[in-house]
Structure formats: structure tokens, C-alpha cells
């Protein structure tokens, strides 16, 4: 019932990217249903927090930004027109919030990066099996840590593109919407980011 009302309010706008369950959830959130809001946060909080954490490199800052992101989501949810999946729309808000914060917040070197190696060893089996056998890729855990540090030194736009692609697995179209740029721009940012990291990798090997 609520879904029908919501679809009717949305008029002629295409909701092809939003499935009916998500549309119903959105409509309940807009109506002020606390349970629905709670469900929406629970569904997306991990994604939001991790992206903010990867881009900011600081846990407290990432948590702070995540709160702001969800407040922004609920403030503007009534304007969401299904032009993308809700997840992509939220990504866009995260990137904008982080970018705003980057302007005045000086990035701090993360202390826990030094102790990262232990975690890499533990997670290596879980994640790195996606495309290539891990034994060849993870020549050393130090290599992964170095690449990550090199990624953190990249310009914000390149870093964001790389994180969205490699960690969050967004497609070019989704990245273009999230970053509010053309697909061609997405490709060139990815290319430049990878070239910089590959030089880092070649430097480690030699």
C-alpha cells in the first residue's frame, strides 16, 4: 500500500534502479517511520562507515562523517527520485561530506597502519581470492601496506575513484553518478591512480 502511494507521488520518474522493497522503505522513512529509518541505517551503515574510513583514514572522523551522512540522507530523502540505486545515492553523499571535511581537516597519519600487517595476514585468505590466486599476489604483506600508503597520498579525486572501484566494486556508471562526473573522467582518474601505484609497486620490487 505504501509502496503504491510512493510510486504515485513519484509521477513519471523512472524507478528502474530502485526495487519495490527499497521504494517502500524509502517511503516509510519519508513518512517519519522510526523503524524504517532504523532499518535503512542498519542496511547501509557499514558501507558508509567503511568508505568514510578509507577516504579519511581516521576512525573517529569516519564515525562523525557517517552520522552527518545519515542525517543528510534523511533530510533529503524526500528529494530522492530513483535516478540511481539508493546505495549509489548514499555513496554520493559520503563523497561530498568527506570532500567538504577534507578542506579544513588536515589528514593525520594513522597510527594503527603500522600494526596493519597482522590484519592483512588474517584477511588475505578471505578477500584476495576474488580474481587471482592469493599466493602470487601477496608476495608480501609489506607490499600491500606500502600500496595502501601510496594510495593515501594520491589526490582526493583519484583516491576516491580507486577506492570506489577496487574496494566497493562500483561500475563506471555508478562511479560517474557518485562523483558527479562523466564516465570518461572516471576512466582517466582510475588510469592515473593506477599508474602512480604501479610505479610504487615497481619501486618496491627493484
Amino acid at each position, binding site marked *: 500500500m505504501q509502496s503504491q502511494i510512493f510510486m504515485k507521488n513519484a509521477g513519471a520518474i523512472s524507478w528502474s534502479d530502485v526495487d519495490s522493497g527499497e521504494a517502500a522503505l524509502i517511503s516509510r522513512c519519508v513518512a*517519519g517511520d*522510526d523503524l524504517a*529509518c*532504523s532499518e535503512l*541505517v*542498519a542496511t547501509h*551503515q*557499514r558501507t558508509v*562507515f*567503511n568508505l568514510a*574510513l*578509507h577516504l579519511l583514514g581516521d*576512525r573517529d572522523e*569516519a*564515525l562523525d562523517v*557517517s*552520522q552527518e551522512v*545519515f*542525517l543528510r540522507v*534523511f*533530510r533529503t530523502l524526500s528529494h530522492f527520485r530513483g535516478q540511481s540505486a539508493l546505495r549509489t545515492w548514499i555513496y554520493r553523499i559520503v563523497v561530498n561530506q568527506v570532500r567538504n571535511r577534507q578542506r579544513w581537516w588536515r589528514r593525520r597519519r594513522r597510527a*594503527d597502519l603500522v600494526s*596493519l600487517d*597482522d*590484519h*592483512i595476514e*588474517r*584477511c*588475505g585468505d*578471505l*578477500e*584476495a581470492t*576474488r*580474481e*587471482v590466486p*592469493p599466493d*602470487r*599476489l*601477496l608476495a608480501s604483506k609489506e*607490499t*600491500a*601496506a606500502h*600500496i*595502501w600508503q601510496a*594510495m593515501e597520498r594520491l589526490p582526493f579525486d583519484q583516491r576516491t575513484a*580507486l*577506492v570506489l*572501484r*577496487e*574496494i566497493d566494486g562500483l*561500475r*563506471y556508471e555508478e562511479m560517474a553518478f557518485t562523483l558527479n562526473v562523466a564516465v570518461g573522467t572516471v*576512466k582517466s582518474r*582510475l*588510469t592515473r591512480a*593506477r599508474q602512480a*601505484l*604501479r610505479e610504487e*609497486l*615497481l619501486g618496491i620490487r627493484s
Partner: protein
Amino acid sequence: MIPYLGCDAARELLHEFVDGELPTAEQVALESHLRWCRVCAARVEDMQIIGASLRVTSCAIRAADSDECLESLQSDVLTRISTEREQSFTVQLRDMCTDLHFFWPAVGATIAVAACLCAAVAVFSVTGDERPDSLAGMIEMLANPGSDENPMRLDGGMVAPPRALNGAGLDSIPGDEAVFALAAVVTREGRVANYEVLLSERASVRRHDTAVEDDDVSSVVNAVKQSRFSPAQAVDGVPVAVNMVWLLARTTVKAPVKASARALVEPTPLPARLAPLVAPPPDEANKPGSPSTSAATIPSTTA
């Protein structure tokens, strides 16, 4: 048949290949290239190592203690949302005040508006004080006959100012007979204004001492000046200012010789009492600028 792909063309497609964004035909062609080109294959492998390294490190970072962080996130967000819904107006106002970009211009605009209002009020108050010799003042005066500035002619329909002028002023003048003609305006408030001595004459005393004569005139004028009248009233009962001409005279009538013994007791003539009468204005009183007159004659009285 797989199309041949050169190294330069292949290099353009490597990133999209790694990201799985290539159309099928190009993907097949590139895979064919990678089978024999070690350079391009090495590039692809490096890109995959970079991606895998980032994913592994990301996993390590988020595995550290993100669950503890996320426990508070959900409840914090919901608390803030409900608070915001309850106080949405207050929040908006606070945001507006916090943002000094809006606050100070608003204060400045308010002060500017207040200053403009003050200036406007000042201009109106200055122009509101009408000068009597200005064109607007003259129009105002002409539009209001009966005002102190534009006294009316006393006609038959009006109630004349009642008599209140006594002859006391004449008492101090030596001699038996004296005649004064005075033109004046009786204002709406009943005061005498714009008086003018038209004639002063004393028949019985032939003094040519002008200083003494001036004293006589001023004593009469003072008596007139200090008099108070009920103001003249128009037909509708509204007090109006009118032009007046008074003729003040003192005469002495000698009693006949066969008069009673009483005349011997009081031979001195009594001071005249004023008896103003409304009468057609005498010709000599019709001066330009004071067209309306009323004459006051003094009947002589003796015992």
C-alpha cells in the same frame, strides 16, 4: 575469427579489461593479445595486485574494531533525527544564526531600514512645520476664514463679542471730553490683537504737549489690550475671529441751572460707561485691510 590487436591499442583497453567493463568482442581480442604479449600481461597482473592489496588492507582496517563503532552509530543517528524532527524550526533558526554570512547582513539590513525610516520621519517633520508666508500657508489661511490670521467681517448673522470693554482707560485722561477710535481683531480665543489707534482727540483740553498726549493714548490702548471678550460666533456657533472698530468717547452733559440741589453736591461728571452697539461702520473707519467694523458709542451719563 579473432581480430588482431596491437600493443598500443591493447594498452588503451587494459584498465577496462581489469574492471570488467569491456564489451565482449574487445574482451576476446584483448585476451588473445595477452596470451602472447608478456608486457601487457605483466601490466594486467600489476593492476590486479594493486586491487587485491587495497582490498586486503581495507579488510584489515575494517576488521579492527568497526563493529564497536557501528553499534553507537545507529542509535546516535536515530536520536538526532527524532530530535531534529521535534525541533526542526529551532534548528533552522540556529543554523541561520550560526552562519554569520546570513546573520550580519540581516543585522545590517535592519539597521539600514531603521535609519531610512528615521530620515523619512525627520524630513516629514521638517516639511510639516508650515511657514506662514509659504504658498501652502497662504492657501491654508485663505481656506479657513475666521481664523486668527484671516478674521471675518462681523455680519448680522453672527453673535458679536459681548461688551466687556469698560471706560476705565478713559478715566485717567484729563478734561471733559475725549474720543478714541480703535481698530482691532478679536481672536477666536477672545483676545485683542492687531490693534491700531485710528483717532485720538480730546476736545475740552487743548494741550499741545505731545508727550502727555502719547501717555493718554497708551493708557487707553493698555485698557483695551487687557480686556477679554467672549469670542464672536458664526451662525453654526463656532468661534471666529472678527475685525472690530471701537469708538470710545467721554462726554459730559452739564445739568441745567434749575437742577436739583443734588447737582450741587455732585458737580463732577461721572466717567462714561461703554455701551458698544453693533452699527454700520462709519466711513472714517473703513480702511483698506479692515473692511468690517463695529462701532461702539458711549452714551453720556450724568447723575
